[in-house]
């Protein structure tokens, strides 16, 4: 079970035992509801809302505890303890952002594993295996999210659904365009009697091409963002101390020592995380 799912389930149970309905406290967007379906975590709306609230409350509490300990150790100003309050919505914002990242990452995981999975499927079909037998063999291998989607499709097929409808149903559970195209081609080929092997060969060729393009796009983005990452999260945090020291002596400017905590332990790590999440979500994964 992923950490997010574990937090969602546990927080949901805690809120339920306290008689609090988290759905009444958090307003969800349409895209978030779709994201819950596509995240592959199997959590309810109430559990998702509980996860957001739990992360927000934990951020506020963690800050309060940490800041109290640091105040006792270093004699900081207790007034800044009030900043624990805005950290609750900030924590919720971070939790939303992270969940959206996980949904994008899962779509990426499908895209990255689909090529290998389709190659495997193709070789199974060429060796004379039936489509459900081939899907079963591919699903039992480690193709990440693709194996999970194929397992879901096989469950539908075993429950009596046709292969076309099972794959159509499963493709609605992933934001991956590549998987949807594959499911649509598969349904079309099965309903019209076209050669499935030829359809898969075409899909594999397209994916191979798109993977090469993905490497180029990633290289370009990486070249742009790596400079930003180095300057914004490497050089700037280091130089800031130097600038503050020099500015303080030359212009008599003195930044409250407590603000260092927000700049260095919140702003800079969050910027780094956002840039790396952006890069990770377009990584070609080879």
């Amino acid at each position, binding site marked *: 079970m992923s950490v997010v799912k574990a937090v969602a389930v546990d927080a949901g149970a805690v809120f339920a035992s306290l008689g609090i309905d988290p759905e009444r406290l958090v307003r969800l967007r349409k895209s978030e509801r779709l994201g819950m379906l596509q995240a592959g975590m199997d959590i309810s709306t109430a559990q998702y809302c509980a996860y957001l609230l739990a992360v927000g409350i934990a951020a506020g509490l963690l800050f309060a505890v940490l800041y109290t300990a640091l105040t006792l150790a*270093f004699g900081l100003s207790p007034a800044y303890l009030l900043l624990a309050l805005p950290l609750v919505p900030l924590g919720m914002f971070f939790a939303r952002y992270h969940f959206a990242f996980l949904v994008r990452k899962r779509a990426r995981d499908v895209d990255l594993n689909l090529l290998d999975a389709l*190659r495997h499927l193709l070789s199974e079909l060429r060796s004379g295996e039936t489509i459900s037998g081939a899907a079963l063999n591919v699903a039992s291998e480690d193709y990440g999210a693709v194996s999970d989607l194929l397992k879901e499709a096989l469950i539908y097929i075993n429950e009596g659904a046709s292969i076309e409808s099972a794959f159509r149903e499963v493709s609605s559970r992933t934001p991956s365009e590549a998987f949807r195209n594959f499911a649509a081609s598969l349904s079309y080929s099965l309903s019209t009697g076209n050669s499935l092997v030829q359809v898969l060969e075409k899909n594999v060729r397209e994916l191979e091409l798109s993977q090469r393009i993905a*490497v180029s796009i990633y290289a370009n983005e990486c070249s742009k963002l790596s400079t930003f*990452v180095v300057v914004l999260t490497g050089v700037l945090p280091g130089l800031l101390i130097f600038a503050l020291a020099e500015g303080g*002596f030359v212009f008599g400017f003195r930044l409250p020592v407590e603000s260092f905590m927000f700049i260095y*332990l919140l702003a800079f790590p969050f910027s780094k995380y956002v840039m*790396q999440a952006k890069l990770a979500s377009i990584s070609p994964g*080879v």
Partner: protein
Amino acid sequence: MEEQLRLLKAFAGRVRSDSPAFVAIERGLRGSVEVMRGELTAGDWAALVVIGFALAFAVSALILAAAITPLIFALGLSLAVALVAAFSVYALPLVLSQGKIWAMERELPSFISYLLSVYAERRNMHDALLAATYASDYRHLGPELREAFAGYRAGAPPEKAYERLARTVRSRYVNRTFGWVVRCLETGLDVSDALGMLSHDVSATLELAAEKNSKVGMMTWMISASSGFFYPLFAALGLAIMSAFERLAAFQMYSPSEKGFVTLVLVGYLFAGVMLDAGYNGQVKFGDFRRGVMVYFPAMMLLAFAIFLVSYKSIGAFVGA
């Protein structure tokens, strides 16, 4: 070497325990150790992790307690050094096993092509395996192939004989190749098409990976350098200049306790930054953030700490801080 290994095993044997923490470390290492097939078992490696932690803590506490005051800071830093040392030992089997898997994948296309050429001629997988297994001295794949083939010839069922290559070694290409080989041996199915495709897939993937590494390898390390090199260097510079200014102006901008807090916050960001960068590196190399933290974090953290301390001392000496 054998004598040293024997001593190491005996020493590790004394440290082994059934505590939940020890068992968890052992469980985490088991997969990698099974792939490596070294002299040391997962339990021995887990014991070495514990020994590494204890030794690093003792040595660093002795040195740091003499150099840093108050004692609680020295002990805290020693704990961090000990954790980094334990992580380094823990990461070693992961790195070695991953290296072995990548090396086996590189040798796979040439093995498959030899296997296929014999199989196409004789239509007999046993003969093809015999020829391909002993055809070339595949450095990493070879011992596994020879052992599996010897087991098969000795009468083990194909699934059992090739179990390591078809399942234990966590590589989808190696697993798929030997999955087909086993299926062919068991059912007589013609797998030449499937193996031919697989050989092409492995070559294409390796080629693409090489292209990606040549295009973005340097940039990925630049990103890691942001927290492992640039940040500690400039942060040390800033702190040293601040101290130098204070000496020149005979005035303290921040009290000693406030400066202690600032240093703690700076080290906190160093820790968070290195962890994020190590995870990112893992995401790029293995597609796994946690694995990246396990493998790269200890070395990067040690490097960042060393750069921070060396820069602070040398710049401090230069500007008279």
